[in-house]
């Protein structure tokens, strides 16, 4: 030991030299807190993040390409698999686009049920966002509670559609089938249960010193930057911009419902948490209004040339082909059989044109740009997925912060890689 305080690593290396070196860390695509296969190349100066480069595409499955090769109705089964935490929003946005191309309106009952399913889906998705973020920063019990309540919603979905996820339940011109017996009561029971559970999460988290420490003042991005980067959803509303597609350009009858769009000014991870909790309450309000005002009537358009002919019903062994309908086409009416055969094998034809339809998914503006050339297949199904665009906010959110905050920030954006990579 000779030259005194300036010597750090030997051979004349000084503290100043060492601080100039940065380290490249590869986080993901296999990492428990990247919400799927998100990869980030982090450049670190000690604990500080100098730069971040998100790398996406690991879950690319070519859904937009596939949709061009299926009939209009079949594409629903593809789009529902993109953002797998909000399948109903994808189905709704796609079906609304095709319905606008066709120039048809769905019956009121179908409209209400679609809104109800979407809002239940929003709660389920926000629960996953809340649960995974708390797991990642150490509040494991909240994860268990969040997934418990999500499971009750998925039970309702299974009862209504036959599947917990990837439902493919919406049809062009309505829904596959009406609610089964008992579904309304079950949803009502959930509406009774949920407000108390939301209070529970708040009790667990809102005054929790670790939660506050990890979220308050973390990942702040000014609203101007977010708007320039096209960020939407809870991230934007947490920074003081009250933009919500449901109120800005109402679709599917959202202007008939009373609800508030929660806004916070802080723009940090904690504000995003508050927005999601408040949005769950607002979604409950909407679901309640749906049930209170649920109109009677069909859930599909009347026009037999457009209406998807398959009929489902709940039998003893679950949801399947409706026996009455099968008898009708197989034994009763030759014309019905021909119509069924034509619509199922060839599908409907959609007049040429293009539309851009947006809905508010739990992550922000989900836009569908659907182009038809007049044939029985979509010519182009372009999806503007909110997770994809929102990930562009990672560099301004993380750069200059600490590496430990990367996890809270990614969790607060709540990206779903199935939607990002499509």
């Amino acid at each position, binding site marked *: 030991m000779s030259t005194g305080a300036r010597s750090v690593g030997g051979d004349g290396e000084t503290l100043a030299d060492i601080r100039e070196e940065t380290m490249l860390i590869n986080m993901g695509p296999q990492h428990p807190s990247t919400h799927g296969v998100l990869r980030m190349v982090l450049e670190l100066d000690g604990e500080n993040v100098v730069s971040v480069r998100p790398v*996406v*595409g690991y879950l*690319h499955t*070519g859904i*937009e*390409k*596939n949709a*061009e*090769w299926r009939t209009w109705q079949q594409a629903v089964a593809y789009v529902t698999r993109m953002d797998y935490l909000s399948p109903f929003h994808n189905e709704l946005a796609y079906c609304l686009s095709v319905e*606008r*191309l066709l*120039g048809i309106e769905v019956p009121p009952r179908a409209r209400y049920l679609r809104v109800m399913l979407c809002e239940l889906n929003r709660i389920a998705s926000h629960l996953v966002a809340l649960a995974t973020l708390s797991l990642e920063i150490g509040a494991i019990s909240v994860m268990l509670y969040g997934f418990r309540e999500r499971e009750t919603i998925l039970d309702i979905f299974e009862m209504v559609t036959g599947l917990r996820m990837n439902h493919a339940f919406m049809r062009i011109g309505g829904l596959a089938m009406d609610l089964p017996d008992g579904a309304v009561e079950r949803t009502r029971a959930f509406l009774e249960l949920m407000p108390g559970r939301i209070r529970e999460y708040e009790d667990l988290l809102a005054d929790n010193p670790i939660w506050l420490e990890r979220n308050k003042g973390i990942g702040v991005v000014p609203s101007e930057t977010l*708007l*320039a*980067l*096209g*960020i939407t959803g809870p991230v934007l509303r947490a920074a003081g*911009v009250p*933009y919500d597609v449901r109120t*800005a*350009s109402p679709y599917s009858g959202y202007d008939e419902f009373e609800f508030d769009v929660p806004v916070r000014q802080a723009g940090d991870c904690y504000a995003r948490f508050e927005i999601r909790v408040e949005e769950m309450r607002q979604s409950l309000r909407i679901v309640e209004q749906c049930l209170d005002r649920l109109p009677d009537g069909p859930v599909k358009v009347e026009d037999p040339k457009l209406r998807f002919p398959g009929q489902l019903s709940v039998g003893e062994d679950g949801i399947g082909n409706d026996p009455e309908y099968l008898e009708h086409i197989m034994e009763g009416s030759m014309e019905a059989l021909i119509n069924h055969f034509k619509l199922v094998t060839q599908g409907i034809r959609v007049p040429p*044109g*293009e*539309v*851009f339809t*947006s809905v508010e998914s739990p992550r922000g*503006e989900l*836009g569908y*740009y659907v*182009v038809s050339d007049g044939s029985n297949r979509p*010519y*182009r199904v*372009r999806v*503007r997925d909110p997770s*994809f*665009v929102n*990930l*562009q906010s990672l560099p301004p959110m993380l750069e200059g912060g600490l590496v430990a905050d990367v996890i809270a920030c990614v969790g607060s954006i709540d990206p779903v890689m199935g939607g990002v*990579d*499509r």
Partner: protein
Amino acid sequence: MDVEALADRLRRRFPDVAVARGEVTVVVDPEEVVAALTFLRDDPELGFTWLADCSATDWPDREPRFWLAYHLFSMEHGHRVRVKAGLGPDEPHIASVTPLFPTANWLEREVFDMYGVSFDGHPDLRRILMPEDWDGHPLRKDYALGGTGTQYKGAFIPPVDERTV
């Protein structure tokens, strides 16, 4: 402004404005896209300050072949517009709008990746969804849906029906 009023307002500046299904579409020459989007963004009456989406469609039998579509939204006035521009079949390229709307960064990268349209002046034009060494642009209409091999980092796996094991 309702759709017709918006279309009339736009017709003062653009010759090709169409209204269909409640949406306004403006078709411009590819060289004019940056000027058109700057005008739409900065005109206070229009206020299209927010770019919702930038995407493309491929029409192999048409001239021009590639059609870019920019979807703009005005948060202040609540109206939307679509700006379209057509590009030729060989080495299609167009000026990037990322300097105007930073959100276009990844959106243009995706169009580049899927259609092979280059964006001049883009800060970081690389593939985004496909691997960087991928051959071809999958959303082009002449790119087959199945029957193509799997390429990744120099490795190649033949299509399903040509595999021996």
